[in-house]
């Protein structure tokens, strides 16, 4: 194992890691219906769409499927967003309608551009 580890860039490296180990990630990816790089946002704490070893292990150790994490409201607070602004109907989930950008509110979707060069 190398002494220096970089980051897993979205498509070439992250998806390769998942594709090379389907049994390891099968449960994590169950029910996911969006690109992996987008679904992984809750774990990209450095907001650069690349994943350090620490971020990758946080993702892997989370007992919840990735689809469930994306629906949950809890992760938005890690990015300075308020739950009540993202989960407007207070049902504990962020629905597709609630993901749509709204004026004056940096929603999870509106924030997709971060990390893009």
């Amino acid at each position, binding site marked *: 194992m190398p002494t220096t580890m970089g980051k897993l860039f979205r498509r070439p*490296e992250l998806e390769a890691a998942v594709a090379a180990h389907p049994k390891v990630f099968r*449960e994590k990816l169950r029910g996911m219906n969006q690109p992996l790089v987008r679904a992984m946002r809750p774990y990209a704490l450095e907001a650069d769409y690349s994943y350090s070893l620490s971020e990758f292990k946080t993702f*892997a150790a989370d007992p919840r499927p990735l689809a469930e994490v994306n629906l949950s409201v809890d992760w938005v607070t890690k990015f300075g967003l308020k739950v009540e602004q993202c989960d407007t109907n207070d049902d504990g989930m962020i629905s597709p309608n609630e993901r749509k950008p709204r004026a004056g509110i940096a929603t999870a979707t509106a924030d997709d551009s971060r990390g893009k060069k």
Partner: protein
Amino acid sequence: MGGELSQLKDADKPGGAKHVLYFDRRFVSALELELDLRSIPGETARAFDTAQQKVGATEFLPTPEGLAILICESGHLLWIPKENVQNALGDAAKIYAQPERFDLAALRRFDSAHKGWLTDDERHATRRDAVCQQEIQAALESSARTSLAQNGPQWETIFADADANHDGKAVPPSGT
């Protein structure tokens, strides 16, 4: 029976129409059940088989008293009593053994009728219950710690293998 997602494709195969996936709140992976249609009239069974080949032509409604299945086009309503459903789920859970969800204990006490899921009101109650939320967070962290202790070295190897350049810089995306 089994819990593999790949078996969803089996619905296209002969006999696959009788196999349904049940998303039990206790587990992450669905349980697969096989419907026994021998006790219903042949015409109804054929209507069910036909409906199962069309998206949205059958509707499944779990209730506290049992499982209702509506064949939309013909209007037939099939009913499976709670006892039968629970016996089948128990058998399926033994065949496809998996650990219970990390948050099950914290949420179970809000399931007033012990029906196996939470209503909207019950779910709201869990979100407003500070003790429940603390329990869930603690269980989540505990589960993650355990998993990390068991699998951390494997994940480090996977990461190292995928991080091809080891230079700390992002590889230019190809085909994006």
